[in-house]
């Protein structure tokens, strides 16, 4: 229903996805709202994280997250958040695969606690190992075209440059660098992090991003289900615009009504 506008499917690592909106599962107030929001978003790829279990007996509220996600409908994409370096990220990826999740990983290594910006050196090191082990690797990166190219050389399935810091809702702040990444990309580019409003995701798609990932702006909205739909609509709208070729931007006006000699 929402997916009513026919756009080209997203293809990552030879797998076809109907939606170009990836959704994160963090920060929702309940499992039910998370499930309904993801449903409303039309997403085909949904991220999850891994976390040390508490051994002191108290129940984790979301410990049963997989009960809310139908692995037949979505690709469940584990991330490596919390990893401080390449080695930890690799271990997390392997744990996720051991748990039966698909051998895909959103590789994110961001030791800085304030801005959660990805460390390119550790990310490259981890990507190299994981690609060799057969993982489909989707690395979260700063908007650095050189790092993006290196990760593609290594064999990553996408690159995921950040628009702005995770959860900041500031939109696309490194537009110029992302344009270069898009121009040079040989794999799908997913803009991740900081996309806080439908105009941000529309704009990302209009620039030519292959997909976007949204989490905070949906999860903490007053009504996450409607917000999820809103983002889904904006992603479609932006993609249609991109596929059609951007409007010509002019300096001067160009009349939409006849102007000459209306009345004497």
């Amino acid at each position, binding site marked *: 229903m929402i997916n009513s506008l026919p756009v080209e499917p997203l293809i990552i690592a030879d797998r076809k996805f109907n939606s170009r909106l990836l959704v994160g599962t963090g920060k929702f107030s309940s499992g039910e709202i998370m499930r309904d929001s993801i449903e409303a978003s039309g997403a085909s790829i949904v*991220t999850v*994280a891994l976390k040390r279990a508490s051994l002191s007996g108290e129940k984790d509220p979301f410990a049963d997250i997989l009960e809310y996600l139908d692995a037949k409908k979505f690709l469940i994409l584990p*991330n490596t958040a919390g990893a401080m370096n390449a080695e930890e990220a690799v*271990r*997390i990826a*392997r744990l*996720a695969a051991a748990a039966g999740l698909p051998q895909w990983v959103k590789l994110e290594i961001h030791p800085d606690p304030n801005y959660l910006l990805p460390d390119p050196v550790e990310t490259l090191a981890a990507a190299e190992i994981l690609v060799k082990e057969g993982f489909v690797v989707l690395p979260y990166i700063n908007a650095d075209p050189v790092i993006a190219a290196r990760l593609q050389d290594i064999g990553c399935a996408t690159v995921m440059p950040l628009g702005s810091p995770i959860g900041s809702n500031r939109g696309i702040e490194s537009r110029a660098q992302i344009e270069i990444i898009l121009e040079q990309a040989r794999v799908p580019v997913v803009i991740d992090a900081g996309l806080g409003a439908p105009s941000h995701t529309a704009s990302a798609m209009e620039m030519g991003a292959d997909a976007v990932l949204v989490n905070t702006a949906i999860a903490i909205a007053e009504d996450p289900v409607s917000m999820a739909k809103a983002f889904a609509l904006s992603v479609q709208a932006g993609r249609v615009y991109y596929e059609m070729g951007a409007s010509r931007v002019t300096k001067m006006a160009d009349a939409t009504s006849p102007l000459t000699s209306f009345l004497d």
Partner: protein
Amino acid sequence: MEQSKLVQIVANGKTFNVREGISLPQFLESINLSIKNVVVERNRIALSPMDAKNTLIEDGDSLEIVRIVAGG
């Protein structure tokens, strides 16, 4: 009855003394976790559910027990 020997392991950074020969599922149950809800890395090797089920705890084992949780 003979008292069973204890072995020492580390799980998620904490030290535990457990009966020798206990299985991994048994150990998890002893700390109120179920093998169905967690993933375990033993001595830096991630275990599949099948492997985990059949694993016996050995002296000096280092375990990481993790859950799949919400994340972006």
